[in-house]
């Protein structure tokens, strides 16, 4: 499982209080599919970010406080997958976004992000709780619990339950 828990990519910066219902779902444009939303997600906050991530072949979103605040739609995580976002690193997360990310196999990492600059090379190791930036260790936080790491490594809660319907993964 270790491979899925080590994630590398360039940093794409967003600010504080990013509402994923507004910026990364079809809540306010019903009928739009994940593909449509993914093309223009976060455009209001960082114009063209979706195409920049796409042309890099994927990347890591870096945000400030409360990423996903005040928004509950699971669809946001599907959009982020579609955008080739490999992980979200933020100072803190909205409660429901954090749940949805783990349940849908999108790695989330909570730490101080204030020193990270756009385009820097990030390497995230979820099992050790470490974040390297341009080769330097910049953060070490308590790793997520084993249950969550297994769920993430298997791509989300439902793939996990298909294999371990009784949660007995040890």
């Amino acid at each position, binding site marked *: 499982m270790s491979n899925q828990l080590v994630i590398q990519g360039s940093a794409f910066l967003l600010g504080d209080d990013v509402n994923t219902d507004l910026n990364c779902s079809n809540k306010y444009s019903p009928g739009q599919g994940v593909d449509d939303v993914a093309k223009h997600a976060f455009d209001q906050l960082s114009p063209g970010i979706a195409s920049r991530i796409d042309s890099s072949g994927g990347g890591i979103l870096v945000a400030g406080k*409360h990423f996903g605040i005040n928004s509950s739609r699971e669809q946001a995580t599907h959009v982020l997958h579609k955008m080739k976002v490999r992980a979200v690193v933020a100072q803190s997360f909205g409660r429901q976004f954090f749940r949805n990310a783990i349940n849908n196999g999108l790695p989330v990492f909570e730490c101080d992000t204030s020193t990270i600059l756009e385009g820097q090379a990030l390497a995230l190791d979820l099992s050790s709780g470490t974040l390297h930036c341009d080769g330097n260790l910049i953060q070490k936080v308590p790793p997520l619990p084993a249950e969550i790491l297994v769920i993430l490594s298997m791509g989300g809660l439902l793939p996990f339950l298909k294999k371990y319907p009784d949660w007995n993964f040890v």
Partner: protein
Amino acid sequence: MGLTIVEKILARHAGRETVQAGEVVVAEVDYAMVTDTRAVNTIKLINSFGDQPLKFANKTSLVLDHYSPPPNQEAADIHSSMRAFATKRGTGLYDIGDGICHQVLPEGGHLTCGDLVVGTDTHSVTYGAFNAFGTGIEGTDVCAAMISSKLWFRVPETVRIDLQGVLTPGVWAKDITLALLGKFGAEGLNYHAIEYVGDAVAAMAIDDRMTLCNHAAELGAKAAILEPDEKTFAWLKAHGAKTPRPTFADADAKYSERYTIDVANLAPQLARKHEVDNIVGVDQIERQKIQFALIGTCTNGRLDDIRQAASILKGRKLASGVRMIVTPASRQIYLAALKEGLIEILTVAGASFESAGCGTCVGITNRLVPGDGDTVISTANRNFKGRLTNKNADIWLGSAATVAASALTGFITDPRMVEGGTWRSHS
């Protein structure tokens, strides 16, 4: 080290002696609820596990409340698929007009003290009024609960808020929650559990306690929970709930913060346009005209709310140019209001009634759309621009008493300035 109420409930459901804030536990779920806004995805996910019998089906209800009655064929088709799923897989179902999820779950006897309840709606925190841990989740979680009867939870830090003093007549739990939104800000208690204690809580009727816990969603809370008392037990018994497991905090429980707030002198509060934490006392407002008054939603569509409105409007007429719609939170409440004569009183005064459901809160049913330039005063829990579909209307939030008093005068009005009747008592 002692435990808070939420820590105790999570520990018990995880089969553990103790838990600590911040850690993740895998816990047994007692009950799950799915609304029509999340049903399509949830049903698809559950069906992906095949047709095997679902042991958890009798602990799950599907609720047709947000699109009630359905405004278009798409919504009607979602409802049809929910009915078919409930019949085939054996879950409970509350059909259109039965009421809002957070009202029908407790009314249906589906939860009791000490339970762990999840629902696909942020206002699932309402169940804390009954000393149950209730929290909002998504379709994947419901699917997991139905397949395995378990979910993972990060144990939240608990904030203890002691509400001291007893509210004066004309002031309600809604006013407390709005004042707290002014103090902490929207999402100001993100991820926390709130334990409300104190004289004001003890004095509240169950309806008001539900308002208190419900509105914690706007504070960002993962749960809001009360200690149970004789009122709780009597209400649960009357609604056929199973034997309660009353859960109290330990004296040496660890809280991330403790606040003591004196509510004895609190004035009715309002959230001004367009933010739920843009709070002001009603006594600070000068001649603000209103055109549209709404009473309903999972926050304030209960019998005590309709009683307040009726006692203010009894024998009177709405101000010229004002229209008013009342949406009871459930069919049971509708019926009780009918039997008490409240519907007649309000209808004579000029108000109209909609069938029970979420329609008062969001513009989803397309039946409560304000006009350009209208100022709406509502008992709902959110007032974002465009919440009722028209971005050129302003929405203010207040208690049912404040809404009714304002509908009577045509201006935002302090209900304490209107001579009333039974609504004055908090006992």
